[in-house]
C-alpha cells in the first residue's frame, strides 16, 4: 500500500446561524507511509477544519468525498476509533481539563489505545517509566504530570504537552495543527525534535503551519498550499520557501 491517508473530493460544512457554510470544497490529498507533508495557506482557508474533520469532530458535516486511512473509511469511525487506529491530532488550542490529573489522563489514554490495538495495558510502573523517558526528551518537568491537564500551562507548555501525548500514543499519522504557533525558538526546537524522534517508515505527519521555521527542522517531503477549501498547489520543500518570500497572493491569483 503506497498511501497511508487518501483524501478524495472532500467537502465539509459547518452549521452557522445563516445556514450551512461550506468550508472544505473538494480536498484531494495523499500521504504515503513515512512521509511528512505540510499544509500552508492563508487564515480561513480550511486547514484547521480539515484537521478536525480527520480527527472526527462532530460539528462538521461531510457532504461529499471520502478519506481512507490504511484503506479504511476514516469518516465512518468514532474519534476514539481513529485514535486507536493511529490518527493523532495535536490541537491548535489544547483543551484545559480542570480536575483531571495529567498523568492519569495520559495513562487512561495510553491504555485505552493499547486495549483497542490488542496490546497489554501498562501498569503504574511501566507507565511511569515510559512517561519519564518521554518528558525528559521534551525537557518537561515532572510537575507538569502532577497538574491538571493544561490548566495554568503556558502556551509553550500546552504545545509540549501535546507532543508528549503524541509520543506516548505512538500514532501512524500525526496531524499537527499550528503546533508551532506562539512558541519561542527554544520551544519550537524541542517540539520539532519531539516529532523527529518519532520519524520512521511507520510514522507520517501532516503539519499545518504558517511558518517556515518548523519545516526547516522537519524537512517535509511535500508541501501543499490550501486556499478556499481546496489544495491548489503541491510541491517540494521549495514551495514553503517561495511562500515565505512571496506570500500567498501569487498562488491565489493563479488558482482564481
Amino acid at each position, binding site marked *: 500500500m503506497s498511501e497511508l491517508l487518501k483524501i478524495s473530493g472532500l467537502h465539509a460544512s459547518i452549521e452557522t446561524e445563516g445556514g450551512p457554510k461550506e468550508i472544505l470544497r473538494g480536498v484531494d490529498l495523499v500521504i504515503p507511509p513515512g512521509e511528512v507533508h505540510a499544509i500552508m495557506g492563508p487564515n480561513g482557508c480550511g486547514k484547521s477544519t480539515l484537521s478536525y474533520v480527520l*480527527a*472526527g*469532530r*462532530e460539528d462538521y458535516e461531510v457532504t461529499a468525498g471520502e478519506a481512507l486511512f490504511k484503506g479504511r473509511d476514516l469518516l465512518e469511525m*468514532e*474519534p*476514539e476509533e*481513529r*485514535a*486507536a487506529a493511529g490518527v*493523532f*491530532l495535536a*490541537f491548535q488550542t*489544547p*483543551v484545559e*481539563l*480542570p*480536575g*483531571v490529573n495529567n498523568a492519569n*489522563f495520559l495513562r*487512561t*489514554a495510553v491504555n*485505552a*489505545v493499547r486495549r*483497542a490495538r490488542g496490546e497489554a495495558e501498562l501498569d503504574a510502573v511501566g507507565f511511569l517509566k515510559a512517561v519519564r523517558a518521554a518528558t525528559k526528551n521534551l525537557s518537561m518537568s515532572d510537575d507538569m504530570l502532577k497538574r491538571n491537564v493544561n490548566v495554568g500551562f503556558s502556551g509553550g507548555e500546552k504545545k509540549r504537552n501535546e507532543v508528549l*501525548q503524541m509520543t506516548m*500514543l505512538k500514532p501512524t499519522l500525526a496531524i499537527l495543527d499550528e503546533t508551532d504557533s506562539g512558541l519561542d525558538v527554544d520551544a519550537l526546537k524541542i517540539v520539532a525534535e519531539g516529532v523527529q524522534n518519532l520519524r520512521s517508515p511507520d510514522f507520517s505527519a501532516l503539519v499545518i503551519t504558517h511558518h517556515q521555521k518548523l519545516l526547516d527542522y522537519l524537512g517535509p517531503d511535500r508541501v501543499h498550499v490550501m486556499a478556499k477549501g481546496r489544495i491548489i498547489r503541491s510541491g517540494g520543500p521549495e514551495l514553503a520557501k517561495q511562500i515565505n518570500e512571496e506570500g500567498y497572493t501569487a498562488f491565489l491569483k493563479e488558482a482564481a
Partner: protein
Amino acid sequence: MNAITPISRGLAPFEGRLTGITNDVRAAAVGELERLGLPTQKVEAWHYTNLRALSGHAFATPGMVDEGKVTAALAALFGDTEALAKLPRLVLVNGRLSAAHSTTRLPEGVSCTSFATTQDFGTQSAPDREAMVALNTALAEDGVCLSVGAGVKAGAFLLISVAGAGNEDASFHPRHAVALGEGASLTLFELAVSVEDAGPAMYLHNPVLSCDVAEDAHLTHVKVQEEAENAVHLATVYADVEPRGSYDSFTLGLGAVLARHEVHAALRGSHASVHVNGAQILGARQVGDITSVILHGAPDGISRQTVRNVLMDHARAVFQGKVLVERIAQKTDGYQMNQALLLSPNAEIDAKPELEIYADDVKCSHGATVGALDEDQLFYLRARGIPDDQARRMLVEAFLTETVELVQDEAVRAFLMQRVERALKARVSAGEKAA
C-alpha cells in the same frame, strides 16, 4: 395565621405513634407538629421539596434486621477501604445502637452515651421552626452522644446507620449530639447505608445531629448518604461554633428517592469558621435537597459553601443557601457557590441563594452555574482514544473531584472518590443513553 392544622394533615403516616406521649419535650414537639403539620410546598423552606413520598404509608417502629445482612453491609463498606475498618465506630441498625457491630474501645478523652439512656434533646433544636426536627423529637428512640474533652485530638470516628425496612414501612429518628471541648478536634464520618435485599417496604431515616464546638475546637463532619433507592432521608444538623472554632462539613448524597440535608450553622464567637460543602449524584427520579442556614453572629467569621450536583434522567436537585449576617458580625467573609451538571434534558436544579446582611463591613458573594458536559473537553478526550462512556465519566468525576478535594483527611477523601467512581460507573453511561 393559618387555622390549626388537624393531625391528619400530613401526619397520618405517623399518627398512631404520636398519641399518648407524656414526656414534656416530646409532647411540646407533638403540639408543634399538630400546629404546623408536616411541611407542604406552601412553607417557604420546603417550596422546592415536597414530602408526598411519605403520604399513603404508615411508618411503624422498625423491626430487627437480619444480623448476617448487617455484617455483609458493613463488610461491603470496609472492604473497599481498609483505612476505614481500622477506625473506631458506632453502628446503629434501624436507628438503634448495636453493641455487637460497634467497637468498644473509644479514643482516649472521648466519652459516649446513648440517647436512649440520657433522653437529652439538647438546646439547639428548634421544633417550632423545623417540623422534621419536631417529628424527630417526638419519636426519637436512640442515638449517640459523643463528648470530646478539652484539648483532645480525637482523630476520626465513624457513625454508621444501617437500615433494612423488611416487609413493613418503618421510620426511625435517631438523635445524635457531639460536643467538643476547648481546643479539641474530631472528624466525625457519618455513613447512612442499607442492607442488600432490604425488602419491599420503604423506610424514613430522620436523624438530628447537634454539634457544640467550643473555643478553638475543630469539628470535621463528613457524611455519605447511600440509603436504599426507595428510602426517604431527611436529616437536620445544628452546629454552634464558639470563638476561633470551626465546623467543616462535606455531604455526599447518592441514595434515597428523596433526601434532604439541612444544616443550621451558627458562628457564635469571633474568628469562627463554617464550611458547608457537598455533592450529589442523582439519577432516575431522585430528589436531593441541600439546604443550609448560616448565621454569622459574631465578627470576623468565615463561611464557605461549595456544592456540586450531577443530575441524570429525571433527577432533581434543590439547593437553598441562606447566609444571615447580624449587625455585630463585621468583617464577615462569606462565599457560596452552587453548580450543577445536567446530563439529561429532563433533569432539573432549583437553586435559591439568600443573603441577609445587617452589618456594613462584610464580604459576601454567591454564584451558581448550570450546564452540560463541555463538548470541547469531551472531544479532546475521545481524540486521545478514550471511549465516549469513559470520557464522560472522567469529566463528571473531575467536576466532583474539585469539591471532594475540599475534604482534608486523605483516607476519607479516597473513600469519597471511590464512592463517587462507583456511583458514576453504575449510572453515567446509562443515564446519558437514556437522554
